[in-house]
C-alpha cells in the first residue's frame, strides 16, 4: 500500500503542470541580452507614453527607475508611520503598566522614568518599522502573493530569473496596438518577443483571496487558533506544575501526626515553665474581680496616650460600644447591644476591672488580648475615663 502511495506521489510529481492558457492576450514579452539594451528599451517605451509596462531583470538594475520614469517609492513613509506609532505605543505601554496600573518600587527608582524605558521603546519602534516595511513592500506595494500571474511558468520568466533582461507591455495599456507595440519592441533590439496569454483561471476567478470559502477558512482557522492557544496558555501558565515535587516536597504540617517522636506529635511541646521571648502571661486569668482591682494603670496620662487610646478605641471598641461608649455602635441590630460605659457601675470600676474585661472578655464580648497590645489596652482605658468624664461633667470641669 505504501508503495502504491509512493508511486502515486511520484506520478503526480512528474506529471506535466502546464496550465491551459486562454486566448486573451496578457501582453508582449521581449527579451534582451544586456543591461544597457534593456535600459534603452525601457526609456523609449516609457518615452512613447506607455504606462502599463514593466522591465524584468535577474537582479535590480541601477538606473532602471529613472529610465522607466518611475516616481520615488513610498515604502519609506509607510514604514516611518508605523515606526513612530511603535514609539508612542511602547511609551504608553510602559507608562501605563508600570507607572499607573501596577506600581512597584524597584531599587528605589521612580515608577516611570524615561532612561530605562528607552531600550524597550527603541526595540518596539524597530520591530514595527521592520515588519511594516517588509509586509508593506510585499503585500501593499508589490501586491504579492500572486502565484498565478500569467507571466509565471513561461519561458520568458525562466529567462529573466536567470540571465536575460526583459520588458513586458500589457495588453490593457491605452496605447497598446498589436503591430505598433511589436514594432517598437523590435526596434529596441529585442531578440525574442513572446505573446503571453492569460491563464484560464485568471479569467474565471477574480482573486482567490476574496473567495468566500477562503475567507471562511481563514476565519475558522483564526478562531480555532485563538481558542486553542487561549486554553493551552492558560493550562500551561496556571494549571500545570510539570515537575512539582520541589514545590510539593514532603514535610510535616502543624497538627499532623509524625512517627519520628514516640508521642506521635508533629509539633514539639515547649519545656515546662518556658515562656516565649517578649511574652508575659496574664497573671489574673480567671480570677475574681476582687483580685483584679489590685491592677493599676501603669501609663501616665498624656495627650499622646489619649490620642492613641482614642485611635484604638475607635478601631476595636466603637463598632459595638459606639464612638461615645454609650452602646450605640454601628453593629446595633446585628449584635446584642452592650450596656453603656457611662453607667454608675462602670464608672466605679477600677482600671483593673476594665483591663480584665478587655483581656478576658465578658458575656458575649470576646477577649481582645490578641488584637490590642497591653499598653494600648491601658491607653484605651484612659480614653474611656475621659469619655466618662465628658458625659458626666460638672461645673468644675469647665475651663476658667
Amino acid at each position: 500500500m505504501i508503495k502504491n502511495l509512493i508511486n502515486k506521489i511520484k506520478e503526480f510529481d512528474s506529471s506535466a503542470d502546464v496550465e491551459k492558457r486562454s486566448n486573451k492576450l496578457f501582453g508582449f514579452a521581449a527579451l534582451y541580452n544586456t543591461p544597457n539594451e534593456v535600459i534603452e528599451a525601457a526609456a523609449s517605451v516609457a518615452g512613447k507614453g506607455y504606462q502599463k509596462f514593466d522591465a524584468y531583470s535577474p537582479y535590480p538594475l541601477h538606473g532602471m527607475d529613472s529610465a522607466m520614469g518611475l516616481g520615488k517609492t513610498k515604502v519609506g513613509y509607510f514604514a516611518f508611520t508605523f515606526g513612530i506609532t511603535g514609539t508612542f505605543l511602547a511609551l504608553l505601554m510602559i507608562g501605563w503598566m508600570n507607572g499607573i496600573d501596577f506600581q512597584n518600587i524597584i531599587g528605589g527608582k521612580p515608577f516611570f522614568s524615561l532612561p530605562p524605558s528607552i531600550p524597550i521603546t527603541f526595540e518596539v519602534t524597530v520591530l514595527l518599522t521592520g515588519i511594516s516595511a517588509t509586509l508593506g513592500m510585499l503585500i501593499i506595494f508589490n501586491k504579492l502573493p500572486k502565484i498565478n500571474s500569467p507571466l509565471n511558468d513561461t519561458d520568458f520568466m525562466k529567462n529573466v530569473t536567470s540571465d536575460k533582461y526583459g520588458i513586458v507591455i500589457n495588453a490593457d495599456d491605452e496605447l497598446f496596438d498589436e503591430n505598433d507595440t511589436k514594432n517598437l519592441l523590435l526596434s529596441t533590439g529585442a531578440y525574442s518577443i513572446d505573446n503571453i496569454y492569460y491563464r484560464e483561471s485568471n479569467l474565471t476567478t477574480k482573486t482567490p483571496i476574496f473567495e468566500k470559502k477562503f475567507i471562511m477558512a481563514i476565519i475558522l482557522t483564526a478562531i480555532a487558533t485563538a481558542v486553542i492557544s487561549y486554553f493551552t496558555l492558560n493550562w500551561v501558565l496556571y494549571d500545570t506544575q510539570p515537575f512539582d515535587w520541589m514545590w510539593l516536597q514532603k514535610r510535616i504540617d502543624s497538627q499532623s501526626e509524625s512517627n519520628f517522636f514516640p508521642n506521635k506529635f508533629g509539633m514539639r511541646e515547649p519545656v515546662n515553665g518556658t515562656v516565649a521571648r517578649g511574652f508575659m502571661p496574664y497573671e489574673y486569668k480567671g480570677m475574681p474581680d476582687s483580685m483584679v482591682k489590685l491592677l493599676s494603670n501603669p501609663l501616665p496620662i498624656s495627650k499622646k496616650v489619649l490620642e492613641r487610646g482614642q485611635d484604638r478605641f475607635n478601631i476595636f471598641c466603637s463598632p459595638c460600644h459606639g464612638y461615645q461608649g454609650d452602646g450605640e455602635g454601628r453593629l446595633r441590630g446585628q449584635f446584642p447591644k452592650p450596656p453603656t460605659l457611662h453607667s454608675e457601675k462602670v464608672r466605679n470600676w477600677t482600671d483593673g476591672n476594665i483591663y480584665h474585661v478587655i483581656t478576658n472578655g465578658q458575656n458575649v464580648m470576646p477577649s481582645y488580648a490578641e488584637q490590642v497590645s497591653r499598653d494600648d489596652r491601658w491607653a484605651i482605658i484612659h480614653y474611656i475615663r475621659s469619655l466618662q468624664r465628658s458625659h458626666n461633667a460638672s461645673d468644675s470641669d469647665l475651663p476658667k
Partner: protein
Amino acid sequence: MSFDSTYTKELPLVENNPTLRQIDDAILLPTQIKPLKGWWIALGLSATALLIGAVALGLTFYYGIGMWGNNQPVGWAFGIVNFVFWIGIGHAGTLISAILLLFRQKWRTGIARFAEAMTIFAVMTAGIFPVIHTGRPWLAGYLIPLPNQNGVWVNFLSPLLWDVFAVSTYFTISFLFWSIGLIPDIALMRDRATTKIKKTIYSVLSLGWTNSNRNWSNYERAYLILAGISTPLVLSVHSIVSFDFAVSVLPGWHTTIFPPYFVAGAIFSGFGMVSTVLIVVRKAFGLQHIITMNHLDTMNKILLATSTMVGYSYMMEFFIAWYSGNPFEMFAFANRVLGPYNWAWSIMVSCNVLIPQLFWFKKIRRSIPVTLVIVLLVNVGMWFERFVIIVISLHRDFLPSSWGIFYPTITDLSLLLGSFGFFFTFLLLFLKTFPLVSISEVKGVTEGAQPTIHLHPHSNGYPKEKA
C-alpha cells in the same frame, strides 16, 4: 573595497568571470544533488551533539537547575555565558548584511546570506538559555506583557526584560531580512524546478515573485530600511545584554564602557564563527570563485580591527579600575589576573587580543590554514571572555566570607555541546535547502552586470547617444 596594485580599479568580486547561468549552477548545485558523504558525517556529528544536549536539557527540566554547577556565590554561570556567547555570534551576520550594505561594501554579497542564516540560528540557540535558566520554562509566558488573571505586569525596569524584547525583535527582524532576501532566489529555484512538488513548494515560498522592476524598486527600498534599522538594532541588542551586568553595582560588571565593548566583542566573535564555517563551506561546495580569498582577507582585517577594540576595552577597564581608587574595583581586576581563574583570563587575552594581532601580516591573512586556527582560537577566547566577566566577577565580591569557586557539572558541559549541535544541525540543513549565497545579489555585482548608461524616458525613437 579591494583594489588592484595601481588603486585605479576594484578587484572583481567574482573571480574567473563566470556567466550568470554558471553562477546559478554553481550556487544551486548543493540544493539539487544528493548530499555528499561529508555532509552526512557532519550532520551525524552535530545531531549526536544535539542529542546529548537534549538529554541534558531533559534532566534539567526534570530535576531542576540543581543539575548545573552554579550556586552561591556564582549564581550565573554556563547558562548565561552560553547565552551571551551565542547572541554575540549572531551579530556578525547582521553586520555583514546590514552595516556593510549601508557602507556600500559590495563584497558582502558573497557571504551575506550565509552569515544571516548563522545569525538566525545563533539567536535561536541563544534564546534557549535564559528560558531554561528560569528553572520553570513553562512559565515563560509571563515574560510577555499580556493581561493575566494574577493582575501583574512585567517589570520594565529590569534589563532582563529588555533582553526579552531585544532578542525577540532581533530574531524577527533578522528573519524578515533573511527571508525577503531569499524570495528572488526561490523564484529562480521555482523556474529551474523539474518536478511538480518542488515547483509547487517554491511557487508558494516565492509568493509569485516575478523580478519586475516595479517590484525591485520597492524591494530595494524595503531592504535598505531593514538594513537601516538593523544597524542600530544590532548595537542595541548586545548593549542591552551588557546592561544585564552593567546596571548592577558589582565590580567587574558595572563599568560604563560595557555597551560598545560588548558590541565590538560580539562582532569579533561572530566574524570568528563565520570565518570558521565559511572556510570549510567554500571548499566543500566548490565556491572558491564566489567566496574568494579577498573575502577572507577583508574579514580577517575586520577581525583584527575588532580584536583591537576589544583589547582597548580590556585596557580601559584595567586603567579605570586603578584610576578610580576604589579598592573593590581594583581587587576585581587583580583577581582576574592573579586569582584562581587566571588561566581563563590568560586564554581570553591571548586568544582575543594577542593572537589576532598576527593578522597585521598579509601573508597570514591570506593563508587559509593559519586563519582557520586563529579564528577557532577566537571562538574559544570569546567564550572565555564571557566566562571571565560573569564567573570571575561573581565568585569573589565584597564579602570574603562568601567567596567560592564554580565547578561546571557534566550537565553544563553537555548543554554547551548541545548548543553547538543545535546550531550546526540547523546550519547543515540550511546549506542543503536554500542557496547559501544570495544569487541575485552576486549577479548584480559581477563585471558588466550593471548598465553603464543613465537615461530618462525619451520619445525620439531608438536612442543611440549615451548620457
